[in-house]
């Protein structure tokens, strides 16, 4: 018995992670956050996402292997606004990593300081589907919000790794400047199509449409998290025809058949658009993600 206790004690000491050094191991709940973290952190950060871009971020299976993957992370960046509330409350405690538990310095809620849209007012009820009671959590689909995230991460990284604080701030500033330039380019491309109505699969595109002057006509889902019935698709298609809406957008993790059926009934076209980095192979980081979204939208509006 004494030998067993000694063995356990030695193994425990081996399992304890070493103090965080200059390099930060960063894990995130979304590829977009990993992309921003990598830009801000540069060579001093290794950022990985538990949720792949082609996965629905609401429904990530809380596999124990995800807990293992962040066992020694120095930082964990949550999307916040309960987008990852269906799996993160299992994965974070299951990691047994005190550095990244909520309340610890290494736990970051990336939604802090973001201007949140669609905060529910009045009674909040699941009669409206699987709603997000803290507001729409898909803020990362507005490229300007990623500047806010970058600045936030730079502050936290600087606190955790003060030796490289200047570099984090410089990188965040460079990221912001590059993003501002890119936004101007995207705005210029979409300006001719301002006010164009589109149908989206889920209520995850409001930040993009608000930024770039598009309009959301409706959703393929009748309510968040509720699959469409044939009757709903028919009625929505009829409404689209009446209003001249021709474009339906869906993400790789949604039911492409439902989106394509709706588009066909409305004499329109359905396009697969990523809202997350990694959603399509071309969306390798936050910049190429928006490049792809904008170019696909321009093509769809030009060919309707």
């Amino acid at each position: 018995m004494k030998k067993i206790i000694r063995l356990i004690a030695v193994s425990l000491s081996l399992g304890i992670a070493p103090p965080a050094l200059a390099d930060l191991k960063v894990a995130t709940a979304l590829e977009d956050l990993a992309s921003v973290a990598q830009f801000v952190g540069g060579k001093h950060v290794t950022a990985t996402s538990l949720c792949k871009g082609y996965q629905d971020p609401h429904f990530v299976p809380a596999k124990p292997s995800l807990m293992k993957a962040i066992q020694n992370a120095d930082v964990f960046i949550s999307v916040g606004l309960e987008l990852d509330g269906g799996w993160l409350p299992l994965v974070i405690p299951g990691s047994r990593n005190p550095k990244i538990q909520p309340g610890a310095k290494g736990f970051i809620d990336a939604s802090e300081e973001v201007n949140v849209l669609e905060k529910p007012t009045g009674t909040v009820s699941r009669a409206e589907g699987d709603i997000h009671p803290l507001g729409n959590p898909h803020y990362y689909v507005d490229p300007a919000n990623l500047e806010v995230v970058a600045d936030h991460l730079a502050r936290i990284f600087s606190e955790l790794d003060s030796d490289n604080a200047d570099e984090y701030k410089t990188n965040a500033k460079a990221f912001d400047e590059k993003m501002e330039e890119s936004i101007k380019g995207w705005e210029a491309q979409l300006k001719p199509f301002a006010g164009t109505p589109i149908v989206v699969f889920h209520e995850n595109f409001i930040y993009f449409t608000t930024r770039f002057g598009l309009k959301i006509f409706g959703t393929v889902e009748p309510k968040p998290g509720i699959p469409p019935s044939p009757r709903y698709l028919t009625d929505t298609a009829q409404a689209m025809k009446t209003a001249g809406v021709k474009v339906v957008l869906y993400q790789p993790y949604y039911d492409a058949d439902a989106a394509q059926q709706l588009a066909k009934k409305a004499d329109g076209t359905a396009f697969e658009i990523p809202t997350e980095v990694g959603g399509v192979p071309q969306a390798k980081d936050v910049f190429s993600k928006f490049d792809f979204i904008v170019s696909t939208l321009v093509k769809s509006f030009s060919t309707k």
Partner: protein
Amino acid sequence: MKTYIRIFVCPLLLLCVAIPIHAQTRSIISNLANPAIGMSALFLGQAAPNLTSPGSTGPGFQEAEISLISTVDPLWTLAGNFTFDAGSGVAEEAFAISDSIPNVQIKVGEFRAAFGKHGTLHTHAFPFIQAPVIMSNTLGEEGYKNAGIEAGWMTPLPWYCELTLGAYRQSESSPDHPLNFNGGSMDNIPYLVHLKNLIDVDDDTTFELGGSALTGMGDDGFHHAVYGADLTFRNIPLRQSNQRGWILQGEYLRKVSFDQTAANFETDGWYGSFQYRWGQEWWSGFRVEEAFNSVSDISDNPTDTSLSGHVQRASVNIAWLPSEFSEMKLEYGLAKADNPVDGSTQFDNRVMLQFNYIIGFHPPHAY
């Protein structure tokens, strides 16, 4: 006794020198002073030719569970589950969890022991309406619930490998808890060892292999123990994680008693099940199971004919989930029990319809 005290005092001492964590108000569970509160409710209707007692067939209120959880302070999270049925309400679980020791999770309170797979599930999370027969014969239909302390260590092995050690209060056996751990000596600390391994076969599929042992001294002079092994293949396509997938699972449990001179086999059994998700709203399942020397009466009604002895059962179900928060499950089970005492064979030929609802906050179910 001193050794046991050292084993379980050490983790608590480590907790006291854990890395200091700056207190902040933000939490991923609740950002408010009030705990996160949720409730689940189960309503069950059933019919079977062998259920003849008044009230044993037809619709009924099966169970409701109210759960609360909140962060206590930088070290602890507290959770409680209170269940109610038509006749009573009990504090089913109330426990505190700490993740402040690197790689170790401490759990203190009254809770389901980390034994096997089915034994860790709440009733509303059962994949089949009826629990496997072997559960009632060994740990209890809803697993082994008792007051105690558990420490789960995530090992440094390259795959997910968790070793859990638990120590519990002495307890007597009952119809819900068949294990006699009521030996009154100070040396009697019922304890658990559980090893869980989970490997990603690929992005979509995992393989899990576990082993568990729970033992303690009874008030009959014997040690009583349950041993278990479980194996699960689970597939959740990453691109369609809430639309497709399947689970193939099997578990074996064996209950024994022993002293220094002899070991007595009491009962054992197994189940194997396959569940398939064929749409966002649809699941189907099929399970076969067998229990030897079964002592629990699966008719679940003391005035009807007891179905015990060598029990074999096959169950099939279909479930409709219009959202994550409601479920309707239709299940058919055919059981055959060969009673070794009187040589009779009894059948339980049962149709069940269960309604399952969740309101408020509900923590994600374990993978």
